[in-house]
């Protein structure tokens, strides 16, 4: 099994898990879904520079080539942003749950478990 197949299928599984969770009705699932999606995207961006084995990150006269450093810096930026946004969304959904009394994304109360 090639490295490309492994990475591509990994991205696929993460993305599908993320999309499934994103479409769930409760905020916690949605937050997890977005986290999965951001992992998938990080891997995707990373692999966009081409998958190279045993190459230096920058130029090395002795090596036959080098890996593309730009996707790595893009991933770094994306990680920072998605980490901060996940934290913000967690706090926001917790606050919404406490103030609105429901953790449904559309803000409607759960009909089965209506508060007494």
């Amino acid at each position, binding site marked *: 099994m090639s490295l490309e197949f492994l990475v591509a299928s990994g991205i696929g599984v993460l993305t599908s898990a993320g999309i499934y969770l*994103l479409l769930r009705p409760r*905020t916690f699932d*949605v937050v997890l879904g*977005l986290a999965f*999606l*951001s992992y998938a*995207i990080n891997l*995707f*961006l990373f692999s*966009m*520079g081409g998958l190279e084995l045993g190459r230096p990150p920058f130029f090395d006269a002795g090596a036959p080539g080098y890996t*593309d450093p*730009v*996707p790595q810096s*893009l991933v770094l*930026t*994306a990680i920072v*942003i*998605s980490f*901060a*946004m996940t934290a*913000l*969304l967690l706090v*926001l*959904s917790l*606050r*919404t749950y406490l*103030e*609105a009394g429901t953790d449904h*994304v*559309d*803000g409607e109360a759960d009909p089965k478990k209506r508060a007494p």
Partner: protein
Amino acid sequence: MTHWLIAPIVLPALTATVILLFLRGRRLRLARYVSLGASAAWVALGATLVARASTGAIETYALGNWPAPFGIVLVLDRLSAVMVLLAAVLGLAVSLYAAASDLDRKGWHFHSLFHLQIVGLNGAFLTGDLFNLFVFFEMLLIASYGLMLHGQGPARLKAGVQYVVVNLAGSTLFLVAVGILYGVTGTLNMADMAMKVAAAPAGDEALIHAGGLLLITVFALKAALFPLHLWLPRTYAGTSAPVAALFVIMTKVGAYAIVRVTTLVFGASAGEAAWAPAAWLLPAALVTLVLGFVGVLSARSLRDLAAFGVVGSMGTLLAAVSVFQPEAITAALYYTLHATLAGAALFLTADLVGRRRGDHGDALTPGPRFPQVEVLSVLYFLAAIAVVGLPPLSGFLGKLFILDAVRPSAHGAWIWGFILGTTVVSLVGFARAGSTLFWESAEGPHASHCKVPVHPELTLGITAALLVGLGGLTVMAGPVTAYLGAASAQLFDTKAYLGAVLGAR
């Protein structure tokens, strides 16, 4: 290389930091003066940039002095300059209104967040790098999350969660699109990407096509284009009115990005991907147009009405953009200037009315008569005329320009029919709302506990000033359209842009 281009990004960022660090808590009064002074300075800065850009030269600024395809460049042309000025003018009105109506007292850090939002907007307008565009989009979104939730309350929080989730999903798609385009072209600089796309081998064209359409999808989400408009009415109606007035320009950022990226990267030279978004843009814009202005009929509050008005105006704007002809882009740009100020004026009017009607708020229900009803009805009347697009205000001229510009297009008849039809529908909606609010009000005691702003004259004056601005846009339509015509000609002259960014090669 002058440093004017970096000023609209660095100076607001510094202002936000200074206010955040040194002017917190009880120093709100001082923070207001600093913030308002800075907002006025951004207008001057925007005017300077427009003056520089109006010579026709495209200025670039290489960050860290790294030359173009390797480092990030900021690019100033006529279009980005006028968008920076528009954001500054709207920002000045909104920050004045927020201070005059004590909105900034309802929570923390309003002024810092406001200036961070300006950083994001200016950066998105000025950058010439696709990934940098993503970063500035994130920046303006992060500031907008804070502003949207400013003042809190359960309804606002519920709308806030949806807004944040939708935009995070959008950011994810943005990264996928950027990743695909980088993987194929090996560059993130938009000018360099335009050259690589033009020279792409046949095998790569499908990927470029897919990446380009994904990118336009993300911009369409920001621009509230059907079927990605669902987040907008609830967000804009859920947040405070001055913030909603500021958010009116965020949809225009999406439209700006569509225009910029399509004309530059996916323009005539892009091979199979040439004008790829246009085929999707037109039907989506027409449906948006109908949904927005039919939504006006179903609105239950004045802010709902204004929000659907924004959706409808985005439909009008993008229908004109989707033709991708210089004249149509000129008309769309004129309509952008108009729709931003008109939408903001309508949101501020909704706030003025809502504060005076006590428990009724801005809901479209007959309520007791409220103070200053005469002045407010005039303001509402003018704002409604502007949004619907009736003479004599600039909305009429904007729609006229658009109708005239799309006449030669193959789908011109469709655009004519939809724009004229929805104008009638929205006219009915606005007339109905106005008569409910201002005529069907019962005689009797004034609303018991209406929250008239601290400075009623000032808040009325700011809203009136926006409408006067629209009047100015109407009177100055000649010079303004001459400038915008030159701006759209510059958009289609990609050689000049490539030459300015990449140097003569």
